[in-house]
């Protein structure tokens, strides 16, 4: 029997239709002493309106610099079961697909070596095993490895890459997000397991501009599938939508950011050269419209949460890149930017922050990228810019004004 705590505040959260995390904690607490004390400490947090976790400590497994986040309770005397309550990150399969057999293996493993509590999944995408003691880490990692699984990233490392459901179950995926994620994860195992960067580096891949994995908001490197061909139109199906009550003018034409769609009640016309590739018409007229090749990806850099300079969205560095195995172009690009970031980045400076500090020009030159209008919303509106000695030698107007 595990210790039972009175939890009147948490009990309140077992009511209502949404599945209750408290019920989950109680299920684990019934058979696991760590989970029981976790529940007890949480009730105290709810009573006192404050967290009782200490700052993380450094724990890990042999040969790795990450994958485990040390966590200790401030109240180890009162709740000894959570004196150590470390998080283990396990690299998830691309697309978050599982089989029952695999899930039961995780359950058996975690009941034996941890609290019985998990997250499916952590924000970055890893499988999270929530709460174990230092001595269990080596056997846990060994058994995971025996069975084909490995730890995920933490600290100043490449973080576990993640992606949307992609071509596994989506008609709009224009790149193989699962394969790209798997391939990049395998390619950069050293950078994933052994923190060697100024700070974290996240890679997220999505199949189309709908961005079902929020890559543009939370990945240092966002890979977003897109297309260059015209949008193929099945006029009969468009008419079906109209017949079923869709107001094509209101719902499709008026919402088009490129103002490139017309509808005469019979035929939908798209001026593809003005299309912004936003996906609105394609998603709302599912089955009637579809993107056509060439397919590739927009590559963007620099998204992060607010610290230190404020939240950023990723911005375009390559408007269109073909994404075919073995993905050499993106791998070379990643290695180039990492070299530069390792050289110049300050401690805890994300790559986007470094670019803002040293300028896009330096970044683009390091990456071997030419400036293009697709990289900006608009050109600068101040009159202050740099000229290099080399620039001063050039007389491009002699060419373009001929």
């Amino acid at each position, binding site marked *: 029997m595990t210790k039972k705590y009175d939890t009147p505040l948490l009990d309140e959260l077992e009511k209502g239709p949404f599945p209750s995390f408290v019920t989950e904690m109680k299920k684990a607490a019934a058979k696991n002493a760590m989970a029981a004390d976790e529940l007890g400490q949480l009730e105290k947090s709810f009573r006192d309106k404050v967290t009782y976790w200490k700052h993380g400590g450094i724990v890990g497994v042999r040969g790795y610099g990450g994958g485990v986040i040390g966590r200790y309770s401030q109240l180890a005397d009162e709740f000894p079961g959570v004196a150590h309550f470390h998080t283990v990150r396990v690299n998830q399969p691309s697309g978050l697909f599982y089989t*029952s057999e695999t899930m039961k293996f995780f359950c058996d493993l975690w009941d034996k070596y941890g609290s019985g509590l998990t997250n499916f999944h952590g924000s970055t995408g890893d499988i999270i095993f929530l709460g174990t003691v230092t001595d269990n880490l080596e056997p846990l990692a060994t058994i995971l490895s025996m069975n084909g699984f490995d730890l995920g990233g933490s600290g100043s490392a490449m973080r576990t890459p993640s992606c949307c459901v992609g071509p596994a179950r989506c008609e709009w995926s224009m790149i193989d997000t699962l394969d790209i994620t798997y391939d990049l994860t395998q390619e950069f195992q050293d950078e994933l397991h052994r923190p060697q960067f100024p700070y974290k580096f996240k890679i997220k891949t999505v199949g189309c501009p709908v961005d079902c994995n929020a890559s543009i908001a939370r990945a240092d490197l966002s890979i977003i599938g897109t297309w260059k061909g015209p949008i193929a139109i099945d006029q009969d199906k468009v008419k079906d939508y109209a017949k079923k009550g869709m107001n094509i003018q209101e719902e499709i034409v008026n919402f088009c*950011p490129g103002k490139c769609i017309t509808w005469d009640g019979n035929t939908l016309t798209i001026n593809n050269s003005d299309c912004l590739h936003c996906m609105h018409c394609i998603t709302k007229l599912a089955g009637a419209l579809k993107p056509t090749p060439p397919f590739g990806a927009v590559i963007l850099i620099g998204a992060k949460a607010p610290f230190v300079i404020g939240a950023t969205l990723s911005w375009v560095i390559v408007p269109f890149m073909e994404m075919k195995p073995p993905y050499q172009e993106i791998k070379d690009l990643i290695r180039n930017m990492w070299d530069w970031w390792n050289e110049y980045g300050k401690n*805890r400076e994300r790559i986007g922050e470094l670019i803002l500090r040293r300028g896009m020009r330096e970044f683009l030159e390091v990456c071997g990228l030419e400036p293009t209008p697709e990289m900006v919303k608009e050109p600068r509106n101040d009159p202050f810019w740099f000229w290099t000695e080399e620039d001063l030698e050039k007389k491009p107007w002699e060419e373009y004004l001929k």
Partner: protein
Amino acid sequence: MPYVIPDVVDVKQRKTDIGPPHYKNFLPPVIQKNYGDWKTHEILSPGLMVHIANSGDKIWSVRVASPRLLSTDTLREIADIAEKYCDGYFRFTTRNNIEFLVSDESKVKPLMDELAAKKYMIGGIGSRVSNIVHTQGWIHCHSAAVDASALVKAIMDEFADYFTTKDTPNKVRFAVACCTNMCGAVHCSDIAYVGIHRKLPRIDHDNFKNLCELPTTMASCPTAAITPDPAKKSIKINAEKCMYCGNCFSVCPALPIADPENDGVAIVVGGKVGNLRKPPMFSKLAVAYLPNTPPRWPEVIKATKKIFDAYIAGAKKHERVGEWIERIGWEKFFVVTGLPFTFQHIDDWTYAFKTFRTTAQIKWTK
């Protein structure tokens, strides 16, 4: 593949850097066969969609909510259900929902019946409220200014009908981050909650030199409010510059900032990540502070309802919260929601000037 958990583990034999297993091991046969060759999909009900391949093959996905924090008991139950109806195949969505992947149409209804009988909350597909992405909160984090799971539970209970049955003009994405570190991407969500502090960190001068690094601590401050205090071998904080972000505490345990009486929740609105129609947008401040009132944060729920109800009443079909606000204008947003506009709503940080209204275009609301 057969999994093994030996009684005796030789940890020295561990293979490193093997990476995750190949995803193909976990894909149902119908997905393996039609991988990258899907034609279209239809949403049959709020928790059920069918994807149709060019070959004519179909796969049905049944979506249920999950609190993300799952016990092994529940995971085993999910695995059993998947075995019974889905040949063992299921997945999770990026918003923590569970999706059962059914290859045999005759098993869809019995699956949904069993899920309903077991009180799973079925829904979340299409133009409605989906599950909430969130952070760890008091369950497992040292810097949480608010609990995350409890807020999620309280919000989802309140808006449950919009997950299971009712429509919204477009998707409504809630998100919860328990501090401004925002390890969940709440800065681009329709309606998001951020745990905030409102008072200075308390400097533990005796322990600073043992626990913290001076340059790292100074560099962590977004407003350069931290300067050295050589006499004490510690630091000083300029109270006029500090905006209570807590980033210094992230790098220095001797600067605790958690404060039960003054910590609480801010609500930000109008963000999105997709490129549909308008480019991705950040969320902006709607409510600067509401107190921490566990277990259900009723003030937060009431304020959310004001925003949510005004959106439902005022948005055109397909408009996300941010698109609706942009169309009606922020002056109208504060009128239709009944939320007060305060000094805290006017930016005074680095890029403040970008948010000031540099035009005479104004909608009169009074």
